[in-house]
């Protein structure tokens, strides 16, 4: 750098210090033995591994402190493998360190920058090539080539179109219709209002025809949580109150934030917590968000009972369930 200040001098590479093994044949012999022992340990590991594979049944468990009651087959297979590999490495490194030449070598770096001559030649060649092709002059060719390359690049995207159907209104629909019974998940049993005590919850799904199949993508939209409170504990407007039945309130279980199942209900505080991102919803106020990243309440399902006293949906969800998406209007 700047020459006006005199820097401290580089004393140069320190003198090489010989290892014991370089000067003392005994030490060298000892190092050799150590390397051999390490390699033999590896062989022992491989034998352990093969032996464990063949002779230790998969249903034997042995106790080890810290690990607990551990599957012996898996443990010894793994430990054998670990030893067989680890000690090869240790042996090789120990060998390199103690017996291979350890004089440090100095080589010079080459400069990456090409000589000016070459650079000038390169530029000239490139220019000459471009001029010969006439790309600069023939703008029609240039533009049409650009167009065709661009379009050709787009075509793979077109080919990906059939990866899936268009969403249409799928994200806004669920299987719930007016009159759909709520059934237990799992078990598929219809539920009467009196089946739930105050403070009780039930995980529910819409009833399906006997022998019908419930796809996971249906559960992903249809899962509903039933909660029974004392009716006087609600703090709802008249419409939302009319969506409840004798203190039973139903919410979509699919988080309005990122779609995890929100089913963590605290009976005393009447709060619902999503274990994924800790959005907290107040059940008494129609699942209003009181903490965490969720921006919308959980959609409420209007419920009532049918002639046999079973809980049914009064109407479908009035808004899309689950996480937000661009086309969502509220």
């Amino acid at each position: 750098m700047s020459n006006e200040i005199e820097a401290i001098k580089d004393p140069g590479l320190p003198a090489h210090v010989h290892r014991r093994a370089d000067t003392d044949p005994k030490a060298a012999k000892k190092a050799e033995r150590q390397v051999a022992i390490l390699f033999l340990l590896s062989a022992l590991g491989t034998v352990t591994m093969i032996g464990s594979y063949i002779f230790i049944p998969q249903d034997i468990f042995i106790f080890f402190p810290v690990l607990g009651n551990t599957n012996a087959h898996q443990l010894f297979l793994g430990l054998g493998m670990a030893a067989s590999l680890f000690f090869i490495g240790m042996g090789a490194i120990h060998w390199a360190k103690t017996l291979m030449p350890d004089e440090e070598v100095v080589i010079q770096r080459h400069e990456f920058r090409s000589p000016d001559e070459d650079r000038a030649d390169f530029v000239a060649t490139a220019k000459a090539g471009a001029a010969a092709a006439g790309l600069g002059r023939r703008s029609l060719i240039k533009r049409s080539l650009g167009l065709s390359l661009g379009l050709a690049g787009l075509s793979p995207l077109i080919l990906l179109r059939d990866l899936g159907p268009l969403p249409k209104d799928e994200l806004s629909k669920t299987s719930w219709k007016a009159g759909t019974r709520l059934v237990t998940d799992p078990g598929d049993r219809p539920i009467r209002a009196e089946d739930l005590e105050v403070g009780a919850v039930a995980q529910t799904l819409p009833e399906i025809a006997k022998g019908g199949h419930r796809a996971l993508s249906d559960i992903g939209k249809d899962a509903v949580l039933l909660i029974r409170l004392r009716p006087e504990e609600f703090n709802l407007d008249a419409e939302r109150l009319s969506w409840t039945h004798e203190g039973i309130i139903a919410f979509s279980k699919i988080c309005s934030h990122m779609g995890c199942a929100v089913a963590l209900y605290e009976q005393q505080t009447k709060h619902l917590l999503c274990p994924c991102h800790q959005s907290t919803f107040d059940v008494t106020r129609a699942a209003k968000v009181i903490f965490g990243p969720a921006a919308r309440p959980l959609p409420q399902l209007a419920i009532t009972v049918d002639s046999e006293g079973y809980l049914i949906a009064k109407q479908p969800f009035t808004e899309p369930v689950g996480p937000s998406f661009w086309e969502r209007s509220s």
Partner: protein
Amino acid sequence: MKRLSRFRRHRAVAPLLLVLALFSIGTTFSVAGAATSTPISAAEKSALIDEGKQLFLKGCSSCHGLNAEGGGIAPSLIGVGAASVDFQVATGRMPMADMSTQAMRKKPVYNEKQVEALAAYVASLAPGPEVPGESQLNYERDGSAAQGGELFRTNCAMCHNFAGQGGALTQGKYAPSVMGVEPRHIYEAMITGPQSMPVFSDKTITPAEKLSIIKWIKAAEAEPQLGGAALGRVGPVTEGLLVWTLGLGLLVGVAVWLAMKAR
């Protein structure tokens, strides 16, 4: 394939190494503490209720009120039933040691007989869920672990974690671990909904299904370490911690040795 299916019942000895029995340890003593369900005479019953009342007045009434009607800091116990008392007192949650966020499991203050008396007294105030009898709790016979697992994951895992290790609730409350809990108490918790826990009614989760849940919990509890140290069975957090400490620690240690000049 079949080899593995037997592992839960297997007691085997590995050569050269101390071998432990696996499975049924947790379950053998679990039924031992179950409350008696033999019918007792009316006189005996009223004596029990009396004893319970005395215990209640001494140990509980300062918070729950002289007639268990509740107070500013403690709820009314009228109608909570014997099951609730048995759960809260026999697991040591009540009496509470301090008025912290939530009562936790600890060594019970009252012995079995006293718990029974307290339960009888509270049950005499108003009807409520009863302590399940031994015959109701034969989960080994009446339960199915696989079905129980499915029920557990739908109804319990969101608070108690996939392996029943417990988890965090809001404001410092937590769902405790369900490991090592007596089947009777698990059952009582489901029907009474203690503290933050909601009630799981018999119609939405039938008694048979509850036994399945217990059977699965007991299976999870007794499950040996199939793949080595369980790391608390809490998922990727401890795995990440181990990789940054032990994993990288070992590798960097070897790297330092590798680059050191031999003497």
